């Protein structure tokens, strides 16, 4: 049986099934109202019933997240490259960036609204602001942790700094980069959703807010499920790309 050959693959599904079942039984057994905690079956019904609006809003959330995420890849890689390859830039920029990163991004949304108005702008920017930091840090780490012996080997050959960065530094930081993408994409969804809750007429964040204010809890939970599924799907996509591009960094897990 496939499951017995590779139990790890099915473990999350099994755990999910057990949790959902437990949740359903608890709601029914304890007679918990839908207004407090909707049972999985009620959430399922809401998903089907409001499939149209959910899909519409999910698409909006998805593409704004992706645009913000693309921005954070570009900016994160460039900043990481600068910080990781120059000690001076590192010393100058790192404390400021850390301070910036510790600002709660939800607090920035009202400012973004003033600048860009209600709509996709604040959502994209919030997704970007919240997710570029881990990408930048990981690229910088990959570049900065180069073995000194290897650098000596190359410098003796007359390698310029750029040679060392392109031939060794960048390939070497790729595993760090992909690891950071997986963290960053889930953060980007958080950013978009938070922004949509106060600065948008569309998107899953707005759907959550509306459903909550109308006490339609099954719909609110359906929105949460959709966000979770989208983030997980993107996470898996980046894991897959990671496994197929930087296999050399994961050799321990591979059958030889």
């Amino acid at each position: 049986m496939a499951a017995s050959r590779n139990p790890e693959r099915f473990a999350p599904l099994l755990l999910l099934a057990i949790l959902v079942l437990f949740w359903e039984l608890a709601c029914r057994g304890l007679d918990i109202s839908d207004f407090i905690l909707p049972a999985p079956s009620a959430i399922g019904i809401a998903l089907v019933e409001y499939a149209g609006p959910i899909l519409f809003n999910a698409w909006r959330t998805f593409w704004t997240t992706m645009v913000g995420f693309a921005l954070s890849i570009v900016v994160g890689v460039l900043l990481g490259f600068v910080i990781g390859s120059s000690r001076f830039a590192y010393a100058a920029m790192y404390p400021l960036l850390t301070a910036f990163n510790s600002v709660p991004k939800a607090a920035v949304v009202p400012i973004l609204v003033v600048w860009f108005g209600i709509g996709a702008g604040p959502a994209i920017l919030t997704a970007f602001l919240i997710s570029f930091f881990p990408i930048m840090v990981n690229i910088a780490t990959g570049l900065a942790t180069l073995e000194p012996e290897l650098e000596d080997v190359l410098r003796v050959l007359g390698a310029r700094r750029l040679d060392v960065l392109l031939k060794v530094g960048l390939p070497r930081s790729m595993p760090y980069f992909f690891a950071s993408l997986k963290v960053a994409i889930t953060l980007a969804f958080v950013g978009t959703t938070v922004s949509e809750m106060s600065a948008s007429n569309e998107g899953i964040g707005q759907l959550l807010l509306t459903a909550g204010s109308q006490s339609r809890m099954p719909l609110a939970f359906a929105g949460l499920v959709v966000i979770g599924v989208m983030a997980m799907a993107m996470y898996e996509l980046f894991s897959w790309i990671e496994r197929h591009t930087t296999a050399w960094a994961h050799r321990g897990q591979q059958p030889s």
Partner: protein
Amino acid sequence: MSDAFVDFRGVWLAYSEEAARAEDYAVEDITLSTQPGEFIAIVGPSGCGKSTFMKLATGLKRATRGEVRIAGEPVTGPLKIVGMAFQAPTLLPWRTTLHNVLLPLEIVQPYRAQFKQRREAFAERARRLLATVGLQGYEDKFPWQLSGGMQQRASICRALIHEPRMLLLDEPFGALDAFTREELWNVLRDLWSAQRFNVILVTHDLREAVYLADTVYVMSKRPGRILVRREIDLPRPRDLEITYTEPFTQIVHELRARIGSIRRG
């Protein structure tokens, strides 16, 4: 002598200006010279400045005092006529063995400019070099698919692919088991016999130094000074059998005694 290849004249090195003011030198008053094609070994206790010596000989560090000349020229910056290998093979895990060995040709001139046009010729050259160290059939494997000894062979090939006039080895066999180490001694012996580049071998292993080198230098604890210069007059070609003969063990004993007296001192 003017025809010396490696020529250190009263060389002192401090790693920073403060260290220099505080008279805290990593190496002191190193004077030595080697004949072209000579194989020298430098032995000494840990932290005696052997690696500093390497940095001076490659131009990665400039002498604080004194002068370093290589091939008759004063050293003013990194020397491209040098190949280096270390205790850690430092191969790039995303490149195959062949492409790891080709790396220097992508960087050092004049090969760099010709790399695109002569890619095939260069790959052929790398394959031949890999074959001479017994790595034929492993060209397309990744470093992590090779044993430690094989990785070190590949690392030595990488150090030699651009046909440097000088090979610098910093404890290259230190992390290998005894059998593999002795195998690689012979690999190095054969490469050197065929190409006669200059070698500076930094090592802890006296048997290794005596077996391979023409001249062995013993360095003191930090600050490193050269205490003993010992020519090894064992006949060449040498075979592992020689390491069990009386003259060989006598030289090793003698050097061991000197190092023992440094450690007590």
